[in-house]
């Protein structure tokens, strides 16, 4: 079934909104570039970002095109199960607040590796942490870039190759010239546009149903059957799978380098906490209203039309926008989705570049002895390397099924990065060997287990039965990372690490000496 839609053709409104957004963000970059000279400005926006600004920027980093188009699509096609999926994406934020927000801000400088390496031997820990961090960022980037290419192709009719090049070039300009200041403001613009756009879409759906959600649900039930409003088996098949995925979503957030990096842009731990509260509010609000958009699309557009354009359901929100607000509104929503992709990729690139330059080059190759000028230069070179890598990976994985990549990024983050980060903060006996073993175990095990799990072994590689039964390996790989980290630390004491635990503790809890 196919109906007339302007989707997939570059309409005047889509092009206008697209250029307006790009012009605005480039103007911001120009302004930010004049304020970006030192490493503190390049990596951490000079630590002058306010709590509200950082709250919006955190939401911008987190709410990717997958959350916007993907969850709306899931609700449109699978009903209530899409809602279950949405709740899982929020629960990491309170955990981030309770367990690491304050210490992370007090202990680190630019990257989470600063915290892990605080009192351990720099070289091995930095290398291991950079491996965990870069692996997470790369996997997340592949998911974003492939998604970006396909979405832009679908929405604007631009060929995949050009879509990748446009995303790569524009976001590279943001990061290269404007560093964290530009990236933060691009995230803020994107978060405001996304929250605003989805709010308007939600209000239009509700106005269509007499401002009464019950009437929307009635229409869903009549058109698609009551099953659409009941939990099915799309997200939660059995308890073990659901618990493991929940762990990955909850603790994966606590190991996402591009999110953790944002904590260094605010002046102190109090601002860091307040920014998480804002972010949790914005993201929670977003996940509460996005199912209304999805349900609205399933009734007003219809599942047949949605899957006719794209089987995954990603086009349900843009199609709904067209039905409710005509081609101009479709153009606006398409441009917002594009801005969403740009901003998330920019954030990831900055995080990847900081791991390359700050963790590997400055702290491993140069042993911390690099001039300010050299550090900024290396940061910019790393940005270009990472930007080219992002486009190359996007092109390489074009024809691959990358739906599992976001889940994998969260699994690697919660297994490789989070255990070492938490143990370095709370446990005096934690050693260099323990940290390295924990990070490498978490990284290798999460990647290996997902390959032999149903997610890749059956869905991607088309084998009959999986070797490892759980779809997301977090429950095994994260536990293993903790156990290995503890056992290896207990094998041999590290007196120097224990000796500096007192200074670390004072800084963790009182912020004495925090940068």
């Amino acid at each position, binding site marked *: 079934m196919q109906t007339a839609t302007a989707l997939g053709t570059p309409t005047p409104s889509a092009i206008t909104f697209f250029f307006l957004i790009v012009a605005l963000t480039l103007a911001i970059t120009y302004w930010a570039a004049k304020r970006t000279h030192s490493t503190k400005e390049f990596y951490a926006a000079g630590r002058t970002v306010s709590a509200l600004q950082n709250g919006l920027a955190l939401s911008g980093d987190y709410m990717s095109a997958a959350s916007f188009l993907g969850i709306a699509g899931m609700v449109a096609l699978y009903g*209530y199960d899409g*809602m*279950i999926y*949405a*709740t*899982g994406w*929020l*629960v990491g*934020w*309170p*955990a981030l*607040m*309770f*367990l690491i927000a*304050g210490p992370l801000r007090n202990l680190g400088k630019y990257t989470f590796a600063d915290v892990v390496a605080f009192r351990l031997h720099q070289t091995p820990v930095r290398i291991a942490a950079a491996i965990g961090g870069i692996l997470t960022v790369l996997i997340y980037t592949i998911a974003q870039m492939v998604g970006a290419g396909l979405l832009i192709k679908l929405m604007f009719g631009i060929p995949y190759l050009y879509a990748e090049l446009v995303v790569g070039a524009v976001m590279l300009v943001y990061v290269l010239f404007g560093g964290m200041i530009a990236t933060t403001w691009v995230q803020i613009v994107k978060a405001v546009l996304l929250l605003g756009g989805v709010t308007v879409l939600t209000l239009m759906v509700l106005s269509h149903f007499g401002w009464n*959600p*019950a009437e929307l*649900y*009635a229409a*869903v*039930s009549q058109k698609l059957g*009551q099953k659409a*409003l*009941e*939990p*099915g088996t799309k*997200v*939660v*098949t*059995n*308890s073990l799978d*659901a*618990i493991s995925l*929940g762990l990955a979503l*909850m603790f994966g957030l606590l190991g996402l380098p591009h999110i953790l990096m944002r904590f260094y842009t605010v002046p102190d731990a*109090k601002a860091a*906490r*307040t920014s*998480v*509260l804002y972010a*949790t*509010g914005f993201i*929670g609000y977003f*996940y*509460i209203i996005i*199912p209304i958009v999805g349900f609205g699309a399933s009734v007003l557009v219809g599942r047949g039309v949605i899957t006719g354009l794209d089987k995954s359901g990603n086009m349900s929100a843009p199609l709904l926008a067209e039905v409710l607000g005509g081609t101009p509104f479709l153009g606006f929503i398409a441009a917002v989705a594009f801005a969403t992709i740009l901003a998330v990729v920019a954030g990831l690139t900055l995080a990847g570049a900081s791991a390359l330059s700050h963790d590997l080059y400055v702290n491993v190759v140069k042993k911390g002895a690099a001039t300010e000028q050299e550090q900024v230069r290396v940061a910019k070179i790393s940005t270009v390397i990472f930007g080219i890598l992002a486009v190359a990976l996007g092109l390489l994985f074009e024809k691959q099924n990358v739906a599992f990549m976001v889940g994998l990024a969260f699994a690697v983050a919660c297994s490789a990065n989070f255990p070492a980060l938490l143990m370095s903060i*709370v446990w005096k006996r934690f050693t260099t060997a323990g940290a390295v073993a924990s990070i490498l175990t978490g990284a290798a095990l999460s990647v290996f287990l997902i390959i032999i799990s149903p997610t890749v072994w059956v869905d991607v590689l088309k084998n009959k039965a999986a070797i490892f039964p759980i779809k997301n390996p977090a429950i095994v790989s994260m536990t293993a990372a903790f156990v290995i980290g503890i056992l290896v630390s207990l094998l041999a004491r590290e007196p120097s690490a224990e000796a500096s635990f*007192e*200074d670390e*503790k*004072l800084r963790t*809890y*009182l*912020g*004495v000496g925090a940068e």
Partner: protein
Amino acid sequence: MQKSTHEMLESPEFKKLVSGTWTIATVLTIVLFIVYYGYIILIAVNKPFLAQKIGVYTTLGIPIGVGVIIAAWVLTAIYVSWANRVLDVEVSRLVAEVQK
């Protein structure tokens, strides 16, 4: 009297601050687990419960799903409010006592 790092870490006030911080963090994390996993396990073991109607068509699962999201935000707000009222006051008092 100004305290050295070691004296500060050994002081009962500092120990109370650390244990208080982790008590709050642990309790709230456990509540978060109960709320979220309670919801997920409910879906896994008792779908009919969430499928029961509370309106003509609206199912109980819908407000419960929204409730999980709101609860997550409320827990975050409780932590921030505690940190602003109790933690920050105590931290600035102790910082003043540490030798620079």
